């Protein structure tokens, strides 16, 4: 090993990636922080004052924001379109559920171990999946997700099969909806803060640089594969954490949380909210969860609504809602109207007339 890979901070400096996304004036940074605090406060107050059933739904939405943000680490910041993050979500959920069913782990142990199990599972899967690129990566992760689903469905002795695992796996102190909401919200807040740190660390900057210009980063001597694998594993860690929180919400685990459509959900959340923004997937998770859960009370056509929303966003607003907010803000300031959106749209459509 004559040559050592340059460290990420040095690479980030060479590439000229801004050290922090929180650019802009101090005032706007303070404003943004204030908005964030206000939003968190609102969610917490809502969670504590809403009727139990609604608090429980909000808790679910909050846990999904973690799933979406963790998936977006590789999707939006790594440029890796994975249709397999449901595997790790499922590993997290099944760790808690099976620990209880086979009486091998108590709840606390299982909650602590779940993300590590997910991360460990992600190492071989990531090593295989990252042998492929772009569309093939998506299709391979999709296949893995279906494989995990089929295993969970058919290994009845281990997993409880099609019906999954149901039961009193959550300790009594967590059964009160308001307590479990707070529990979930606290874990999600800490996890998202860590992910924020990851995205804005030199490692995160190099990851984005790989997404934007793989060849150039490779030319600098960076081990691109190792970075992508690390991101994949970190994402899996937090997806599993989100999955274990699913058990806190539903007191169950079943095969459907692993299949390819389930794996697609955090991707869709990120796309709806805006995958190039850190908090975009949070917005997307709330929108998606609201659409699929609350709409179903008013209309049977939730698939139609979600489909239409996805279609509208992907065709008209490739930046997602966060991108729209950004360009709206820019427009309000009368600086550069919708330039950002135009640039982000596909660079060259060889086909011709729109």
């Amino acid at each position, binding site marked *: 090993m004559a040559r050592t890979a340059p460290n990420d901070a040095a690479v980030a400096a060479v590439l000229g990636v801004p050290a922090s996304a929180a650019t802009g004036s101090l005032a706007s940074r303070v404003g943004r922080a204030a908005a964030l605090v206000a939003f968190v406060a609102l969610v917490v107050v809502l969670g504590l004052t809403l009727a139990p059933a609604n608090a429980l739904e909000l808790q679910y939405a909050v846990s999904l924001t973690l799933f979406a943000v963790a998936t977006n680490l590789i*999707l939006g910041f790594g440029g890796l*379109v994975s*249709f397999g993050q449901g595997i790790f979500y499922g590993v997290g959920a099944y760790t808690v559920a099976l620990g209880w069913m086979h009486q091998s782990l108590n709840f606390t142990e299982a909650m602590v171990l779940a993300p590590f199990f997910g991360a460990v599972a992600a190492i071989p899967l990531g090593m*295989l999946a990252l*042998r*492929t*690129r*772009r*569309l*093939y990566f*998506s*299709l*391979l992760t*999709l*296949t*893995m997700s*279906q*494989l995990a689903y*089929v*295993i969970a*469905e*058919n*290994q*009845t002795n281990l997993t409880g099969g099609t019906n999954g695992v149901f039961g009193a796996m959550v300790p009594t102190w967590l059964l009160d909806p308001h307590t479990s909401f707070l529990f979930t919200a606290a874990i999600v807040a800490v996890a998202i803060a860590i992910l924020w740190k990851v995205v804005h660390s030199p490692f995160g900057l190099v990851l984005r640089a790989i997404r934007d210009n793989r060849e150039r980063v490779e030319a600098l001597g960076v081990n691109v594969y190792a970075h992508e694998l690390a991101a994949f594993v970190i994402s899996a860690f937090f997806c599993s954490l989100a999955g274990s929180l699913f058990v806190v919400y539903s007191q169950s685990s079943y095969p459907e949380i692993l299949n*390819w*459509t389930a794996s*697609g959900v955090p*991707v*869709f959340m990120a*796309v709806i909210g805006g995958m190039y923004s850190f908090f975009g997937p949070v917005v997307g998770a709330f929108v998606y969860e609201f659409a699929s859960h609350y709409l179903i009370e008013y209309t*049977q*056509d939730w*698939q*139609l609504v*979600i*489909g*239409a929303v*996805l*279609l509208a966003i*992907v*065709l008209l607003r*490739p930046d997602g809602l966060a991108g729209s907010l950004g360009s709206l803000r820019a427009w309000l300031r009368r600086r550069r109207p919708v330039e950002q959106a135009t640039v982000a749209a*596909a660079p*060259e*459509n*060889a*086909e*011709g007339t*729109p």
Partner: protein
Amino acid sequence: MARFLTETIGTLSDAGSLFVVAAGLTLVFGAMRVINLAHGTFYMYGAFVVTTVAGTASGLRFWVAVVVAALVVAVLGAIVQLGVVRFVVGKEPLTQLVATFAVLYILADVALHLWGSGARSVSAPLGVSGTFTLAGAYLPVYDLVIIGTAVLVGLVLWLLLSHTSLGWMIRAAVDDPELLQSGGVNLRRLHLAVFATGALLAALAGAIVTPQISVAPGMDQSIIVSSLLVVVIGGLGSVVGTAFAALIIGIADTVGTLVDPTWASTFMYFAVILVLVVRPWGLFGTPER
């Protein structure tokens, strides 16, 4: 021997219908570089249309229903192409995946309105129902219909792609779409034709299998996974590869069931993972440009 024959015919029949669906998917990918997650939706619509048109009568009306289903869904495919897919040609895979998944969701909802959430069934038409005996094995006659259809589709596709100028244009679009349109071809019209044909093939497969399955919502999501597996193993865009891969998947499934039923359904996934890890562009595909 009897057991072997039964398994072989069953495998060929499964592989046959899978080939017909997947051929449509791979044709669209090859000529348009679009991966269509709503392809399974066309299969489901084909099956549903047959249940509506064939009704309970079995006989000539069934065959009419199959033809009607294929044509109606080809028109549906054209609408999807004009309304959605043409905007994502040449875009990132993520954009294509999300847009076509949205179509899957929307059309699944529409199907619920049209056909409800219950399962429907159609009986095999007279003449091709029941079983026949061969070397002591009782074999469903209808399996032969499916195998025959698959062989016919394979032949027609081969003739189209190798002996007609339309087929050459489709292959030219696979090779170099930009060169094709700067030579004077209206690429959008070609895409429309290809996409409608892809939908037609999916619908044909869905229509032809109706006597053997229960037709219900959710078919779209399960068939798209199997056809993606086939297309990925065979190499995206390769019709020959698709035929081989459909056989591999069919055999993996049959052998899996014989070896260990609880692991049976995992065999084909392992096959796909193995192929992609060794040859990330599939058996008959070419590395991505």
